[in-house]
């Protein structure tokens, strides 16, 4: 290629580049305009789940697309009826059992049309008795009576945005359940209007709520643990203790073996909640061993004295452990080997817990097995470590021998020193 041709080629190139550079923004503008147009109509893009409904109901579509239902063979029309391929409103809103907006009264039955069908639910391993349970629940009964303000499926599960209960974003995930129930049972105006207890806020102050929210213990009970899920009902006198006893098994066992069980049943008293309360269950407090008796028993009666005895027994054991811990701390400051003692104290803490559990039998015998063990561990440790700390005095005695030795040595050196001549000159 000659130099000239080369130059020519370069010139062509340069022009082409300039043109492209000029045209590029233009092309970009055009393209983005086209995209914008496409997006505008794209709202009505036909998706598998919502068909064309989203063109006019974009919010519902977005909610629905994220739901658990969307991935399955579920469409807008599954619940609402109508034609989701229609290009106009009139066509869309008719036929195929068109229902339009679903009323609260219709809601449970509509959900049940699938969720009570064993065939449909079988692949998902979901129960099918929710609807029948719901009909027996407080909510369901009131709904049947025409009370439109009670909870229906969509209040807890959402309408379009139904999520699995295992999804942490779901309203029915364990940690979200209290808030979900609380939308009504913690709504101050609603609560006043319908003369209910504000159980949500009571619950928030309970040990159960602390365990659930602060410690992340998903095993801590929420509303549904005691009241049932779909068959939500207030627990009655005979049942509360069973509900508590599901987790507090050992307490219940002891309680059953004690005198309270029969007596309280006779008086129609709730077992656990009489002392511990219900929704706002406070942390267990050992002082209540003695202080809760007077709620029923006369002051100074032998039953009240019994409570005081239990408390005293427990406290003396706890004190022994506390003292042992102090001795261990003292030994650590020396330091003396304390790992073993720490392990034993750890065990003694277990005994103390067991003693509190056993206290539900309100019998000193049932409790003393544990308190005695805890106390003796505490006392043994105090004694053993105490004597080890004492042993340090042996070293102090040794110091006497050492000083005797030092002084004699100094005596010898002084003799050696003075045997020589005094200062020269």
């Amino acid at each position, binding site marked *: 290629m000659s130099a000239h041709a080369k130059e020519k080629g370069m010139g062509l190139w340069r022009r082409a580049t300039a043109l492209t550079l000029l045209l590029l923004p233009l092309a970009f503008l055009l393209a983005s305009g086209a995209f914008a147009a496409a997006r505008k109509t794209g709202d009505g893009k036909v998706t598998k789940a919502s068909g064309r409904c989203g063109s006019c109901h974009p919010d519902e579509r977005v909610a629905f697309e994220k739901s658990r239902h969307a991935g399955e063979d579920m469409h807008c029309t599954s619940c609402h009826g109508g034609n989701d391929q229609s290009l106009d409103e009139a066509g869309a809103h008719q036929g195929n059992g068109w229902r339009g907006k679903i009323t609260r009264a219709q809601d449970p039955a509509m959900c049940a049309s699938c969720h009570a069908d064993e065939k449909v639910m079988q692949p998902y391993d979901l129960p099918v008795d929710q609807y029948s349970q719901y009909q027996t629940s407080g909510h369901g009964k009131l709904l049947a009576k025409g009370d439109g303000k009670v909870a229906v499926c969509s209040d807890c599960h959402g309408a379009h945005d139904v999520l699995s209960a295992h999804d942490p974003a779901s309203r029915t995930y364990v940690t979200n359940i209290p808030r979900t129930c609380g939308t009504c049972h913690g709504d101050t105006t609603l609560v006043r209007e319908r003369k209910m207890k504000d159980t949500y806020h009571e619950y928030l102050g309970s040990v159960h709520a602390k365990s659930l929210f602060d410690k992340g213990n998903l*095993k801590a009970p929420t509303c549904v643990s005691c009241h049932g899920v779909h068959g939500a009902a207030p627990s009655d006198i005979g049942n509360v203790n069973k509900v508590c006893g599901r987790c507090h098994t050992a307490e219940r066992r002891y309680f059953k073996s004690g005198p309270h069980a029969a007596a309280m049943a006779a008086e129609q008293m709730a077992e656990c909640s009489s002392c511990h309360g219900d929704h706002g269950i406070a942390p267990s407090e050992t002082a209540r061993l003695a202080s809760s008796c007077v709620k029923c028993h006369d002051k100074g009666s032998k039953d009240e004295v019994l409570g005081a005895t239990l408390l005293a027994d427990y406290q003396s054991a706890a004190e022994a452990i506390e003292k042992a811990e102090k001795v261990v701390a003292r030994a650590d400051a020396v330091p003396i080997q304390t790992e073993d003692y720490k392990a034993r104290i750890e065990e003694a803490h277990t005994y103390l817990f067991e003693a509190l559990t056993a206290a539900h039998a309100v019998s000193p015998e049932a409790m003393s097995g544990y308190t005695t063990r805890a106390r003796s561990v505490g006392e043994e440790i105090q004694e053993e470590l105490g004597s080890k700390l004492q042993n340090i005095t042996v070293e102090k005695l040794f110091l006497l021998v050492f000083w005797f030795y030092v002084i004699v040595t100094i005596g010898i050196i002084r003799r050696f020193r003075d045997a020589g001549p005094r200062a020269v000159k």
Partner: protein
Amino acid sequence: MADGAGRSDDQPGAEGGTDRRGFLKTLSGAFLSLWALGGAGAIAAYMRAPEHNESSNERVVRIGRLEDLRIGEARLVRHGVSPFFVIRTGAEHVIALSAVCTHVRCILAYDHERRGLICPCHDGRFDLNGNVVSGPPPRALPTYEVSTRAGEVFVRV
């Protein structure tokens, strides 16, 4: 010259031959040499490194001989504030898992019949994989690696 100041105390002994002085001198010598003996002993004692089996830094705990563990039997090993169970589940199979309940740190008990761990405090139950079976414990129990070397069982915590 050699009999200068440094040796003036020798001379009365050598010249006078008084036994008492010589005796005193040997006695003093013996006494002083005890310093060397004591010092050497003390340093030797100090130099003997202590056995490390109980340091909190220790990662591997020696449990004992495999044949001393019966099959199906659990042994509670008190390892400071984090005791654990060593359970021989089969001829060759030994497992180790924490004995501290994940609820409020009670020490668990081994349930031979159900092959699980039971918490005496609130009746929490665990299986031998550490999973919570029932009760209030929120989390599974930590399990530890077990190794058997020359018939000796070690647990790495």
